[in-house]
């Protein structure tokens, strides 16, 4: 009863929806902690317990800093990380649970109603605001002086233009960089050493057995100015397939050596390395978006979001028996870009 009167005082308005009348806020049902001093004391001790657990957690964090000081092994680092985690979890969760328990059990649980105010200002507010704006308009003369207004707008509008010039040096213009790689006539194919810089290891044609695949970079890449930029264009996958299985385009007859073929490893979709070679089917699969290329058909796309085949690197064997490029890629590598058909790639 009392709570309903209380509610009415707070201005709750009864409402009707579909003919039903809002029954008003229900009476507050007391919690166990509201009526039983014993329960209240128990809860108080429980909450304090959570706070004490938190303190233990903090101390444990500090202790484990010294107790589990890592040597340089992964296991010791992991152990200390775990102990930090344990300490921090207890420290933070203890405070959290204690506070929430406090809020839920000991702090008054009576629901209170608060009136909403209209979102918009009242008529007087609106009138005053309008008056202020009109006054500002009159005093500044912005409506009466179109010359000032328009020149101001124009001045502000073009003021950011110099920023375009300033930001111009964010990068160089593409130039012919999209059309050239480190490959060229006589550049030897080298095994990709991975992350460890090493002497170039050239590849002899006879060392490439049927069924094998080699990750290849151009000779001298590590001495170039930006090896990663070069690698991002020049990475090649070399495979040897029984020549009988290859459907070679007569125009590209001499681009391989006895079934050894080299293709750009950079996907023509969005540029991930097409690194998965399926030996049975001679398919190349891009692990990022699953574009699939058929090596036996000049790496045509047979599935997935890529459109263009992987460019083939024409190769030959030099006088010392090493695999070399005949020329640069005949078409641009990597993702499609607007100017892709605007020029021939260099013949050298």
């Amino acid at each position: 009863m009392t709570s309903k009167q209380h509610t009415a005082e707070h201005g709750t308005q009864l409402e009707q929806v579909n003919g039903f009348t809002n029954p008003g806020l229900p009476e507050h049902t007391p919690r166990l902690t509201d009526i039983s001093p014993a329960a209240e004391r128990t809860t108080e001790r429980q909450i304090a317990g959570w706070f004490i657990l938190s303190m233990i957690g903090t101390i444990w964090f500090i202790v484990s800093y010294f107790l589990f000081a890592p040597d340089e092994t992964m296991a010791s680092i992991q152990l200390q990380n775990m102990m930090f985690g344990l300490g921090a979890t207890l420290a933070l969760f203890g405070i959290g649970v204690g506070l929430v328990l406090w809020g839920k059990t000991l702090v008054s649980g009576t629901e209170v109603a608060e009136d909403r105010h209209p979102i918009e200002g009242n008529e007087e507010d609106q009138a005053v605001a309008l008056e202020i704006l009109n006054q500002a308009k009159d005093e500044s003369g912005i409506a009466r002086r179109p010359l000032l207004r328009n020149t101001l707008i124009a001045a502000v509008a073009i003021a950011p233009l110099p920023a375009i010039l300033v930001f111009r040096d964010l990068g160089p213009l593409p130039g012919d960089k999209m059309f050239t790689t480190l490959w060229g006539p006589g550049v030897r194919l080298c095994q990709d050493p991975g992350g460890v810089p090493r002497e170039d290891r050239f590849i002899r044609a006879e060392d490439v057995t049927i069924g094998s695949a080699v990750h290849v970079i151009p000779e001298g890449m590590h001495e170039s100015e930006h090896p990663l930029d070069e690698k991002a264009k020049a990475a090649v996958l070399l495979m040897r397939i029984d020549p009988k299985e290859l459907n070679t385009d007569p125009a590209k007859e001499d681009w391989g050596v006895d079934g050894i073929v080299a293709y750009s490893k950079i996907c023509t979709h969005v540029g991930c390395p097409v690194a998965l070679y399926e030996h049975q089917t001679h398919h190349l699969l891009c692990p990022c978006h699953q574009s699939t290329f058929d090596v036996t058909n000049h790496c045509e796309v047979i599935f997935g979001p890529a459109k263009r085949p992987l460019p083939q690197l024409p190769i030959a064997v030099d006088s010392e028996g090493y695999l070399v490029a005949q020329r640069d890629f005949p078409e641009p590598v990597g993702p499609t870009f607007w100017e892709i058909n605007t020029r021939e790639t260099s013949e050298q």
Partner: protein
Amino acid sequence: MSTTQPTTAVGKAALFTENRVGASRLVKEFGRKIFPHHWSFMLGEVALYSFVILVLTGTFLTFWFKPAMGHTIYEGPFVPLQGVEMSEAYASTLAISFEIRGGLFIRQMHHWAALLFMAALSIHAMRIFFTGAFRRPREVNWLVGIVLIVLGMGAGFTGYSLPDDLLSGNGLRIIDGILKAIPLVGTYISFFVFGGEFPGVDIVSRLYSLHIMVVPALLIAVIAVHLIFVVYHKHTQWPGAGHTEKNVVGEPVLPTFAAKAGGFFFMIFGLLALLSGFFTTNPVWNYGPYDPSPVSAGTQPDWYIGWMDGFLRIIPGWTEFYIFGYPISFNIFSSVLVAGLLFGGLAIWPFVEAWLTKDYREHHILDRPRNNPTRTAVGAAGVVWYLNMWAAASGDLMAVFFHMSLNDMIYIFRVLFFLGPVIAYIVTKRVCLALQRKDREIILHGRESGQIIRLPHGEFQERHKPLNEDRLWSLASFESPQYIPAEPGPDGKISKIEKRRAKLARFFYEDRVAPVTKSELEAAHHDHGEVEQSRKDELTGSQQ
């Protein structure tokens, strides 16, 4: 000004503050501000608290992280990478993980908090959508929330690319591919973003200033706007006894809400500590430094970027075509269009819904999702559309797990991209209508009492008891949107756009379960009463 001079230290400090900043007005205004309590109102809090933790842990990381791409040879304690060439960014990430004590813990907490932040934002947005909390006067705050999601994705992406590891480097490579596919200016944009050719030596430091300055500053500003709106509009509330459109019922900030929310912050913090201590996330040391040639199978981005990556996997290659030799790479930049579609759709929905139902009134009482079957169905369709793309980003892993062909997997995702939302719309709408019928049943015939009676002719029946008035109000006090036929405008003619509105509204709102009215309920009770009475006559004395 107080009439008595304070004697305690707290009192003196309070007076000092009061005389300089007028804190009493603040306390008076906000101290007893009411927050309704319901678990679904805590999702936004989770997002807010994870953001606070992101700022704290992120600041720690900046003390050691070196946002530079200069090459170094690793000589740190992590044996598998010793002697490997890498960027300073990657090397310093390894140092934070293995040489700064507690560094691994904080790094993991930063990453886990980011994952949780985006998850909480997404689920919070779904809560707002499905309960209609975006309706007037909150449409603008809904738009602000969408901006927050986009900024959150930006913060996440710029952040996880910083360590310059193999996985995130491939992510950047994909961004490079998408940039280059932009018609006309793509190549130039890519060169400007990367400071030349991909990967170049500038991108990490550029992402760094975005990640630690620009994006967080925007996030903080937009979060502030979001919260100011929440305070100004006051919180929405569920239908319930005593809850009206003109009040807000709940707990006052001081002390109840403050205690609970403060505790909840520490619980979220504790949860993240638990995850960071015991579960590895983003182990960049396993991936190795970025190198454009290798990539690991099963590569995928952080979960909240997954849907866009998934879309890149399911779009077929023939969507790239050439006009006079110039490429339109729809198979690439359409991932951006898809994002535009999702966020654009979310942004216009409040206005579309108001237009369709001609409901431009203020709403502070939430809809139970079933009571607006159309909105719930549209939302479910959107969620299914999103989740299908999201799942597609793991299509390769699923194919391995289920021993399926990878290609079949992608065909399934392609079909579901179109079919999934339609099925979800139809099913959800029917389920909502069925649930509404169930509610009608409960209102009209009462709740099950568990008392079985047997009629003289042998039939068993369960006795139903009427609902109490509070429960009745919670279930029955809703408005059901309905189809409004085309109406003439002020000029007495039905405009073309109004005809179109009516057509759409008819499709969306024609099927509906009318809410129970008081008179209906009385009629039902009347009938029921008669039956009960006659039964009583038949069963004299047999009732318990």
